[in-house]
C-alpha cells in the first residue's frame, strides 16, 4: 500500500512538472512568434522558407536542427560568412538584432517548433546566456 501511494505521488509530481514545462514552452513559443514577426519575418518570411541563395530557410533547416549552439550564437551576435543549409551555400550577413537572452530563447523555441520543425529540448535564457561570441 505504502509503495502504491509513493508511486502515485511521485507520478503526480512528475506529471505536474511535465505539464508545467509544457505550459512554459507553449508560452515561450507564443512570445517567440511575436519576436519572429517583429525581427525575423522580413528576411526568413512567414513560412520560414527564406529566399533561396539569399536568406536561408528555417523551416526544416538541417543547419538549425543540428547546430543549436551555432544558431543561437548567430541570432545573439550576428552571423556572417559561408554556411550550408539543406545543401545550398549561403554567404551573406545576418545582423545582431539586440535581443535579450529571454527573447532569443523564445524565438528559438518558436522556430524549433514551427513549420513542421520539432525541437528536442526547450531552450532556456540560461542556455542562451552561456553562449559566447567566437
Amino acid at each position: 500500500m505504502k509503495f502504491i501511494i509513493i508511486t502515485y505521488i511521485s507520478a503526480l509530481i512528475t506529471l505536474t512538472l511535465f505539464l508545467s514545462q509544457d505550459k512554459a514552452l507553449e508560452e515561450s513559443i507564443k512570445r517567440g512568434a511575436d519576436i519572429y514577426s517583429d525581427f525575423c519575418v522580413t528576411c526568413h518570411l512567414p513560412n520560414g522558407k527564406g529566399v533561396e541563395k539569399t536568406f536561408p530557410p528555417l523551416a526544416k533547416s538541417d543547419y538549425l536542427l543540428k547546430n543549436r549552439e551555432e544558431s543561437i550564437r548567430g541570432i545573439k551576435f550576428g552571423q556572417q560568412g559561408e554556411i550550408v543549409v539543406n545543401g545550398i551555400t549561403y554567404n551573406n550577413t545576418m545582423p545582431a538584432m539586440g535581443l535579450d537572452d529571454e527573447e532569443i530563447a523564445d524565438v528559438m523555441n518558436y522556430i524549433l517548433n514551427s513549420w513542421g520543425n520539432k525541437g528536442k529540448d526547450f531552450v532556456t535564457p540560461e542556455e542562451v546566456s552561456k553562449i559566447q561570441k567566437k
Partner: protein
Amino acid sequence: MKNSISFLVLVLLGLNLSCAQQGENEVSTPDKITFTPQLIIDDLPIAWGMAFLPDGSILITEKSGDLIRFKDGNKSIINNSPTIYNRGQGGLLDIAIDPDYKNNGWIYISYSSEEGEDKGGNTAIMRAKLNGNSLTNNEVLYKASPNSTKGQHFGSRIEFDNDGYLYFSIGDRGDRDVNPQDITKDGGKVYRINRDGSIPSDNPFVNSEGAKTAIYSYGHRNPQGMVKNPYTGDIWTNEHGPQGGDEINIVGKGKNYGWPVITYGINYSGTPITDQTKKKGMEDPLHYWVPSIAPSGMTFVTSDKYPSWKGSLLIGSLKFQYLERLELKNNKVVYREKLMPDLGRIRDVKQAPDGFIYVSVEGKGIYKLVPKI
C-alpha cells in the same frame, strides 16, 4: 460548364490585374556593362551611410555603432560617436555633411537612441564636428518619442534642399495604426528643421494643436532613401512597403502619403491591409514596386563619368541584391535596369563630389563604379 466559365473569367481577370503595371515592374538586364565595380573599402558588415569630405576621405556609419573614416587607403575609428540602441533595424544610420561644411564643419548623423525615460529607443539626429580622431560639439537636434522596444522602421536618411533646410525621415516604428496618420506623434514622417535644430516658422503644422512641428509630410512607412533632385531642387524619397508597395515619392509640404490607409502592398502573411490604393487627400506615389525590392539609398546621376546614365536615378535593392537604375521622363519611370547583380544587399548609393558613384554592399564593403573605356 458554368464553373469553367467563371474559372475562365477569374483567370482573365487575374491576368488583367497582373498586366496593369507590367511595364513598370519589368526590370531589364543591360546588353553591355559599361563599368567595373571596384571594391575600394572591404570588410564592412553593414555600411549604412557614407559622406564624402573635401579632403577626399569618406566617413562611414557601420550599423553596429562604429563611425569609420577612410583616408589614404586606411580605416580608422572616430571616437565619441553617438551611443546607439542596437535593436532590430536600429543602429548608427545615415551621415551627411553640412552644405557649408568648408566653413562650419558640421556633420549630421541619424541613429537609434535610448535617450528619454521610457524603455526602448527611437530615432535621433545629432550634429557634431570632426576634430582629429574624435567628434566634438555633439548636439542632439531631434529625438523622436516615445521609445519603443520594437525592432522595425527607424528610417532614416538625411538630406538638404537648396534653401539649406535639413530633412530627415523616421519610419512608423512598427506601429502603423498609431503613428503615420497622426501629426501629434513621431514616426512615419519626413521632417524639416533648420540646421541648428530649430523649427522653420513656415513648417506646415506649426499652428496645429499638439502637432510635432518638425513634421513636413506624413503617412510614410519606412523611408530609407532620400535625395535632392539636383534638376528641380525637390526632395525625393523611397520607402519600404510591406509585402509589395515600395514607393518613390516627391515630398510636398504638409502632404499625406497614405500609409496604412492606401498601399499597393499586403501583409507578410498574405492577408490584405486595405483594398484601397487611392484616396482623396492622399498622394499617389511617383512609382511603386510589386513585388517589393526593399529599396535603400538613392542618388541622381549628374556627372559626366557615366554619359548614358545622365539624369537616371540609382536605388539599392536589399531584397533582390542589385542596383536599380531608373530612367525618368516627366516624373514617370520609363525604364528600369538591373546592375551589379548578386553581390549582396545594397544599402546605400551616392554620387560623390568627384563624380563617381559609390555603392555600399552589406557583408562586402564600398564599391566604386569605374567606367570602362
